[in-house]
C-alpha cells in the first residue's frame, strides 16, 4: 500500500512540470503617454519581460526604466533624473494573476478578455491595481495587449507646479507582448 502511494506521489511530482507550462517574452513593448494641456510626451521600451504560468494564470512583468526612449534627449534626462529617479529605482514591475481565469482557455485558439489583479510597483512604491486586457491564443503563443492609466501621485512621482501644464498626472500605459512557451523548466 505504502509502496503504491510512493509510486503515485513520484508520478505526480514528475508529471507536475508538464502541467505548469510557462510562457515568456523579453520583447514586450511598453509605451506611455502623457497628454497635458501644453505638451504631449511619449516614450517606449521594447525590452519588457513577462512570464505567465498557464496553470494558474499568475503573471509577472518587468521593464527597466532607463530603457525608455524619448524623442527628445532632454525629456529622457528629466524623466530619469527628476521624476523616476531611475538610478535608485531601476525598474517597474507588476505581479498579479488573472481573476476570471475560468473564462480564459489558454489551450484553445481565440481572443479572451482577461481581468488581472495584482501589485504594481513604480518608483519604489507598490500599489494594488486591477487591469484588464486581451489575451489572444494562437500559433502556440499568447498575444497580450492592455491599456491602463496610472496616476503619478499614486507612486509618489512629484510634478512641480510649474510643470503641471506640461506633464499630466494621468499617464496612459499600453502594453503589447507575444509570449512563447518557455523552453526549459525554469
Amino acid at each position, binding site marked *: 500500500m505504502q509502496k503504491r502511494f510512493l509510486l503515485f506521489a513520484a508520478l505526480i511530482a514528475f508529471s507536475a512540470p508538464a502541467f505548469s507550462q510557462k510562457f515568456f517574452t523579453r*520583447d514586450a513593448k511598453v509605451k506611455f503617454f502623457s497628454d497635458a494641456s501644453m505638451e504631449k510626451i511619449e516614450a517606449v521600451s521594447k*525590452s519588457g519581460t513577462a512570464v505567465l504560468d498557464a496553470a494558474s494564470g499568475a503573471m509577472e512583468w518587468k521593464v527597466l526604466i*532607463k530603457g525608455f526612449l524619448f524623442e*527628445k534627449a532632454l525629456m529622457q534626462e528629466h524623466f530619469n533624473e527628476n521624476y523616476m529617479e531611475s538610478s535608485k529605482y531601476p525598474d517597474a514591475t507588476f505581479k498579479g494573476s488573472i481573476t476570471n481565469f475560468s473564462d480564459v482557455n489558454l489551450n484553445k485558439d481565440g481572443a479572451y478578455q482577461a481581468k488581472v489583479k495584482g501589485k504594481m510597483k513604480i518608483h519604489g512604491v507598490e500599489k494594488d491595481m486591477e487591469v484588464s486586457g486581451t489575451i489572444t491564443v494562437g500559433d502556440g503563443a499568447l498575444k497580450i495587449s492592455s491599456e491602463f492609466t496610472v496616476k503619478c501621485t499614486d507612486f509618489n512621482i512629484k510634478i512641480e507646479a510649474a510643470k503641471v501644464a506640461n506633464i499630466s498626472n494621468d499617464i496612459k500605459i499600453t502594453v503589447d507582448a507575444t509570449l512563447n512557451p518557455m523552453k526549459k523548466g525554469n
Partner: protein
Amino acid sequence: MKRIIYLLLAVAFAGGAIGYYLWNKPHVDMQSAKADLAIDAAALFNEYSADETAANAKYLDKMIAVSGKVKETTKAEDGTVKVSLNTGSDFGVLCELDPLSKHPRTEFTEGETVTFKGNCTGLNFDVQLTRCVEVK
C-alpha cells in the same frame, strides 16, 4: 534708457537661444561616443547575477562596450534588432540596436565574436543594453 532696453533684449534673446538649444538637444551620437568601459559578456552577466545592486552602481547608465559570442539575433516586425550574447547561462547580455543610428549590418552569425557598445539599463533576466552599435 535705450541702451538698457537693448541689453535686456540681448539677454532675453540669448536666454531663448540657450533654452531652444537645450530643448532640441539631440541624443548622444552612439557611433562617435566613447565607451566608459569595456567588459566581457559573461563577466558582466556574472556580476549582475551575484549582486544586482552592486552591479547597477557600477554599470547602470554607463556606456559600455560588451564583447561576446552571438547566441541569437531577433528582428521584430517593427524592425527592432536584438542580439543576445552568450554567457553560458540561460540568459545573457541582450543588446538592442540603436533605432537612431545607421548600422553597417544587422545580421550576425551564431557563435561569431562581436563587440557592441550601448547604454546599460540593468538586469531583466538578461543584462540589457539599449542604443547599441557594433564596434569594429
